[in-house]
């Protein structure tokens, strides 16, 4: 039944965009509403469990299977919401919490974007290298996979220490660059793997065709491999965006960069006992930044729609 649309013969020549767009808009709206409903259900579950669940959680054989319901562990949702509207501290000049978190989010997003760019660039270059030279692929790919088993917390101080040794002319390494670099360490991975798959994705048929046209490697890359890889690249870029945000937050904590979400998470943690709503604000901030970043990359997909025509709807 879901095949209907795909099987329908293409309307010869021109399509009528307006009606289609309206329909798609409607579907989109419905999806958003259902998604919102999902969130509401989750919120209701939270409050319901908090109301009915035992204070010490559901413990079976010494293992806590369901969480504790104390105000410390599961603050009421309205406590979190109210807290966001209040000032960060009692000081006269204190900004409201939401504003501070928003500023932190933007800061983190900015660094994550730089990390993403670096990661994507490195990932693409690696993929090109591996696509071009089979030996490079077999020698490097396992190490790329392995690289992701090294915990960031071990790398972060190294990166900062080495970065601070760099000082060329007017350029001097700053802490935020270390954070961006660590973010790129997570971001490059999906891109290199995805791009490699994408670059090797063209049919033998198409590769033969380019060969028949006596097209060189660069021409084949530009005319065939890159366009063909778009379908693989976009999910990889989205994954990289989420990873870049995660990496940024972790690195902010790790090397203590001020201004971002990671720092707020650490600093508000101390208030967890006396002000249980406060630590949740940067957590939601970090989720929002992640979704925003992933959504942003989704936008890129819109511009590259042309290159995804070959894909069958999942």
């Amino acid at each position: 039944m879901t095949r209907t649309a795909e099987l329908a013969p293409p309307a010869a020549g021109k399509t009528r965009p307006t009606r289609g767009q309206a329909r798609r808009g409607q579907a989109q709206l419905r999806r958003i509403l259902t998604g919102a409903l999902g969130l509401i259900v989750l919120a209701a579950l939270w409050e319901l469990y908090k109301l009915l669940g035992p204070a010490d959680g559901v413990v079976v054989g010494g293992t806590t299977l369901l969480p504790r319901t104390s105000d410390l562990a599961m603050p009421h949702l309205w406590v979190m919401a109210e807290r966001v509207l209040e000032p960060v501290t009692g000081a006269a000049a204190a900004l409201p919490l939401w504003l501070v978190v928003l500023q932190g989010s933007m800061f983190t997003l900015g660094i994550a974007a730089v990390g993403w760019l670096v990661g994507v660039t490195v990932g693409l270059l690696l993929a090109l290298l591996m696509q071009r030279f089979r030996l490079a692929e077999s020698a490097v790919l396992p190490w790329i996979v392995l690289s992701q088993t090294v915990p960031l917390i071990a790398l972060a101080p190294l990166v900062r220490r080495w970065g601070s040794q760099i000082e060329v002319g007017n350029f001097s390494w700053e802490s935020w660059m270390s954070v961006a670099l660590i973010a790129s360490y997570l971001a490059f991975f999906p891109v290199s793997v995805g791009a490699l798959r994408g670059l090797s994705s063209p049919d033998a048929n198409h590769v033969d065709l380019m060969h028949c046209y006596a097209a060189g490697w660069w021409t084949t890359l530009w005319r065939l491999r890159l366009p063909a890889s778009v379908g693989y690249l976009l999910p990889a870029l989205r994954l990289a965006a989420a990873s870049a945000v995660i990496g940024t937050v972790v690195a902010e904590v790790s090397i203590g960069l001020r201004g971002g979400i990671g720092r707020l998470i650490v600093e508000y943690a101390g208030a967890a006992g006396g002000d249980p709503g406060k630590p949740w604000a940067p957590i939601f901030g970090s989720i929002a930044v992640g979704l925003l970043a992933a959504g942003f990359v989704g936008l890129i997909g819109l511009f590259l729609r042309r290159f995804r025509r070959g894909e069958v709807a999942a």
Partner: protein
Amino acid sequence: MIMESAAGGRAPAVEVGGVSRVFTGRKGASVTALDDVSLTVAPGEFVSLIGPSGCGKSTLLRLIADLDTPTAGSIRVFGKPARQARIDQDYGIAFQQAGLLPWRTVAGNIELPLELHGAGKAARRARAAELIELVGLSDFAENYPDQLSGGMQQRVAIARSLAESPSLLLMDEPFGALDEMTRERMQNELVRICGETSAAVVFVTHSIPEAVFLSDRVVVMSPRPGRIRDVLGVGLGDTAERGENLREDEAFFHAVSQVRELLHGQAPTGARGVETR
């Protein structure tokens, strides 16, 4: 075996001399896809390759196109080594699958070879329009491949193979995916186009009527190892003169029967079916 065709003074379009191709599998086993195959195609001549699956038709075509290199023997295209001919773009090629780039429009796909070889934008446009007209897709120039039926896609691929007016066309089962009616229509168009451009054609097919209908000569191949079993001059009149009625002609059925028998390994006895019953 009749392998020479009267070709006048010009170099033959294709000259395959004692070519073998052995594939070595990963497990050490080797497959002799072609064994000592020789074949000459004259300029402007239409030659079909027919034979059971795995007899090496595609392999031979790929060797001519320099998409693969022979284990032994030599291949010359218009008197040059195959590699040179490929670089000089002496041939156009169409595969069994249309192989269009899904992100390019019909026009964009047809322009591709011209673009790669540095033709100017205006020239490309004009040539593409001409070819689209030729294959009867004028209303679809700006459509994307996924908006076309299989037959239409195949026509685009043929137009693309003609883009640089090659004097040699290599086609590997280009009509394999089409339904009978569309297929016949495409065959008629191919006959017309070849008449107009007087290109030589090497045409791989599984269909006996198709081979007979289109060709000057039909090359019947046998598998394991891939060899040329026989070459049958069909000569149902000059390309340009052949028309729709030919398909219901007695000589047509006669030739079909002959090719069938060759394929089944019998000596061609003449149209036994028709004459002895």
